[in-house]
């Protein structure tokens, strides 16, 4: 018999432990949660998505992913807590219930499993994938510079050893291509939310260019409402804006691709902290981080539900 009730969400876990917890969630909430494999990583680890659905064909859906940059451990931990939150509160929380009665949610808890394992075993500060290229000593590509959105432009590097190396071509990383293929095949994704950590930002397109997207006003309003909701719990302050205006120009990023693909509600979260711990955020901050992030996520998801397009 499997149960998720003993899992410690307030601790950092190995990939194996996270995957087991995902199995347990799917078993415990079997009518609501299922685990899908959308591909495998460069080193042949499965890429698992949790699907939350109350049934019905061709339903609109929300995409969530976490931890594309391996070392941002609080994001993978936040995603797993979020999965448990969604599953356990369907049927009791009116907002989650109404959301899942209308739409599906897909949640990729560990977007870059090779990098995650590498950050656990070899280099805690690892950020990239683990793909190898002939003739180069340096390994890996920054998977958030590898999307087909201004690929090769400013804010990404063509140097293989750089931490922001963009890769040889767009979608060269199987971890990225698997998501792109899944979203294209699904065809009815209405929101694309990606969770990163460090520096407390909530961003919308664009990053590959410093111009405002067509839906700027709405995205800014939705983003600010989400940030306010997030801040209301512990007072954590978030800055909201386009990637280019809030942080810097960065090409080949995921939400630029998703927005240009037609997914209007494309947002990227950068969770705690402001520098005191960097990517080594103490485990006792996982649950507060997840709790506040949930309020922001929920605010955006409610807007998506109430504003079909």
């Amino acid at each position: 018999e499997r149960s998720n009730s003993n899992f410690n969400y307030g601790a950092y876990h190995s990939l194996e432990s996270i995957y087991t917890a995902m199995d347990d969630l799917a078993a415990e909430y079997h009518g609501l949660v299922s685990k899908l494999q959308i591909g495998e990583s460069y080193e042949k680890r499965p890429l698992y998505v949790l699907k939350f659905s109350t049934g019905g064909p061709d339903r609109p859906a929300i995409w969530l992913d976490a931890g594309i940059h391996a070392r941002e451990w609080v994001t993978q931990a936040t995603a797993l807590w979020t999965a448990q939150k969604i599953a356990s509160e369907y049927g009791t929380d009116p907002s989650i219930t109404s959301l899942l009665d209308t739409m599906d949610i897909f949640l990729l808890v560990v977007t870059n499993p090779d990098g995650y394992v590498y950050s656990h075993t070899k280099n805690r500060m690892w950020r990239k994938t683990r793909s190898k290229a002939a003739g180069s000593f340096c390994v890996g590509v920054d998977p958030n510079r590898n999307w087909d959105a201004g690929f090769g432009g400013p804010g990404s590097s063509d140097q293989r050893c750089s931490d922001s190396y963009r890769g040889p071509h767009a979608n060269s990383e199987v971890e990225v291509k698997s998501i792109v293929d899944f979203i294209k095949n699904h065809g009815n994704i209405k929101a694309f939310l990606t969770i990163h950590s460090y520096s407390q930002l909530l961003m919308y397109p664009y990053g590959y260019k410093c111009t405002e997207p067509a839906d700027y006003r709405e995205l800014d309003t939705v983003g600010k409402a989400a940030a306010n909701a997030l801040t209301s719990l512990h007072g954590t302050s978030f800055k909201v804006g386009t990637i280019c205006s809030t942080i810097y120009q960065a090409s080949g990023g995921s939400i630029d691709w998703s927005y240009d693909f037609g997914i209007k509600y494309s947002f990227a979260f950068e969770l705690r902290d402001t520098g005191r711990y960097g990517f080594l955020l103490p485990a006792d901050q996982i649950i507060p981080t997840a709790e506040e992030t949930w309020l922001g996520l929920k605010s955006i998801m409610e807007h998506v539900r109430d504003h079909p397009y």
Partner: protein
Amino acid sequence: METFSGDQVLRIRASSDDQIDKLQLLETLEHLQLDFWLHPSNPALPVDIRVPFGSLQAVRAFLGYHDIKYSILIEDVQGILNEEKQEMISNQRR
């Protein structure tokens, strides 16, 4: 496992576009093996860099020479990493 003993994280506050240009130059110096957590973009935003112990003197000298202000966010990355490892061991035991 790669260690980070003596590595520090510096928060740099550039005061002009010229200083941002200098920091962007610093970013290109691959031999220093700097890990930019926040890249230089405009003077309104801080720049955070994890500096390996072996590059600390060179980076501080560079910042001092160009009169760029900075503070130390993390004194010793390995120290925090050790605490994290300890935390994980005790959680696993629990």
